[in-house]
């Protein structure tokens, strides 16, 4: 029972790291990046390619993953989303085109990784890091799980604090409320959008590397499933709320763990999809949402 709880918290922390960047981009600059899952997976994949050739400690692998994620995310913003935003005639068409472009862009890194690994799982066997397991009575916790939980909470709370307190955070939130007025007030939207995507991609890369360490290996397809889970988390917490993402991530992980341990396991995926439908039907603004969903 306690073991399930620990596993659920570790799973929730991975969800949190992944969803944090997506939520930040969607809640502030209004970009729902469907390539986020692909960036997440490809960062871990790039680290795997390097680790295969050079024996690296964990810190270096994490740094590589984070940097690759940030660079990819920045590239997607500059080469895909910015041209769309420049040309789209209104917000609604831009929103939809960004969603579709994200789905399209996501195919390419996925295809490269699938081609290279023949769709087999890959892991950091070349890394000098060795997982240690601490045993406390019946409870088993690995040092990676501890690292994941601590990092997720520190980064989640830190990001929330940064958005609340810092000048850039204030500017970002103002874009989320009304981007035109904020730019009249002197907010440089393009610079902040790039910064947001950079941070979001870095978080995705970090999550990718940590998940690979945690599970031992991941498949190239794991990004796709996570995108929909992250969407459920963001919707549940409320778009634009970092506190909502933190709560949403752990709620989803706990709910999935309960379903996994109580049923045959085949229903696990229905949890996140069911959450999306239920929240959208009965509490559209989510648990901590600050604004109404745009009506049809």
């Amino acid at each position, binding site marked *: 029972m306690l073991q399930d709880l620990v596993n659920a918290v570790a799973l929730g922390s991975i969800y949190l790291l992944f969803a944090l960047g997506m939520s930040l981009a969607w809640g502030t600059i209004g970009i729902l990046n469907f390539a986020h899952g692909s960036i997440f997976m490809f960062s871990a994949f790039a680290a795997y390619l390097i680790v295969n050739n050079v024996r690296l400690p964990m810190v270096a692998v994490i740094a590589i993953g984070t940097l690759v994620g940030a660079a990819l995310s920045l590239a997607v913003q500059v080469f895909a989303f910015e041209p*769309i935003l420049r040309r789209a005639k209104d917000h609604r*068409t831009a929103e939809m*085109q960004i969603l579709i472009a994200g789905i*399209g862009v996501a195919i390419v890194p996925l295809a490269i990784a699938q081609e290279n690994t023949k769709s087999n799982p890959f892991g950091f066997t070349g890394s000098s890091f060795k997982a240690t397991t601490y045993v406390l009575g019946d409870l088993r916790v690995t040092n990676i799980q501890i690292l994941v939980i601590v990092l997720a909470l520190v980064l989640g709370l830190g990001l929330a604090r940064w958005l609340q307190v810092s000048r850039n955070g204030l500017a970002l939130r103002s874009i989320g409320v009304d981007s035109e007025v904020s730019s009249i007030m002197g907010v440089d939207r393009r610079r902040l959008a790039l910064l947001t995507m950079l941070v979001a991609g870095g978080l995705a890369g970090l999550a990718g590397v940590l998940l690979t360490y945690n599970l031992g290996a991941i498949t190239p397809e794991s990004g796709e499933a996570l995108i*929909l889970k992250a*969407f459920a988390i963001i919707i549940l917490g409320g778009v634009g709320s970092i506190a909502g993402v933190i709560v949403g991530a752990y709620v989803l992980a706990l709910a999935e763990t309960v379903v996994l341990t109580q049923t045959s396991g085949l229903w696990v995926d229905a949890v996140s*999809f069911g959450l999306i*439908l239920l929240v959208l039907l009965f509490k559209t603004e989510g648990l901590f949402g600050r604004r109404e969903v745009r*009506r*049809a």
Partner: protein
Amino acid sequence: MSGWYDANLVLVQSTFVGLLLALSVQVPLRMGVFSFAGVGSYAIGAYTAAIVVIRWEAPALLAIAAGALLASFVGWLLALLLHRLGGLYLGMATVAFDLILSVVTTNGGELTGGPTGLFGVIADISMAQIIGVTLIVVLLLAASERGRIGRRVEAVRDDPELAAAMGINVRRYRQAAFVVSGLLGGCAGAINVLLRTTVGPADIGFGLVVLALTMIIIGGAKSWLGALIGAVVFTWLPSILAVVGEWQQIIYGTIVALAAIWVPGGVLGLVTDAYRGIQQRRRLKELAAAGAADVVEDHGADEEDLAVLEELAQESPVERQR
């Protein structure tokens, strides 16, 4: 010719199924309803047809009708349920609906065959029936793009408030979008399962949503012709790209991404834009010859919008009387 036809029969059949599936996602998009429920309808249609055929040995057309009707009924329920949502939220809610169906079929026990799906769905479906169904669908949809209904659909998409002010019952049009999408998706799923004789939860995942969407985006979102172009391209592209071997998926992804970014109107949009451009230039040239070119610059789009508005204005009294 017949040799080629026999060799490529599977691809020809898939083109029709792809077209129906693409249309089931395109119809709501054309009304400004961002719904992917057509993919869920595909699942419902496929499983219904399979069950009807396996249990009662129903004839092909009856199985297709059963699948399509059940799917459109579910589409109607979904429309009632989700009527408050719009934009991305509606899109994701319908994706969630699609994926829940794939989990439900995985857990459906004997009825849906669980994770392995259903096998041995053997019915007397013929190419003529497939072509017949598709032709009827395309003719009806083509009719809905012209004249009065066409203008109303355009108004509902581009400016729902204006449409409502003109006396168009926007909500009913949106519900109709869900119902028609269900019918088409159900048809596509049912036909596919009768052709392939199997269906499983893996056939109806997120990949199918992406496929339907890319067909429309590459072909063009505004007309059935765009869906046809998309269906042809994406049914045949993989076999053409097989030449490049291992690069196939990478090129495929690049094409989709580039098209989504730079050609939002799809192939059809490119063609019509080019055609309009030529026409406009010719008109300007004629006007210039008449010495009046400086008065008429930069019209085109505005002129068209005005025409739509005028026609709508003429129509509105009729709508109000209802």
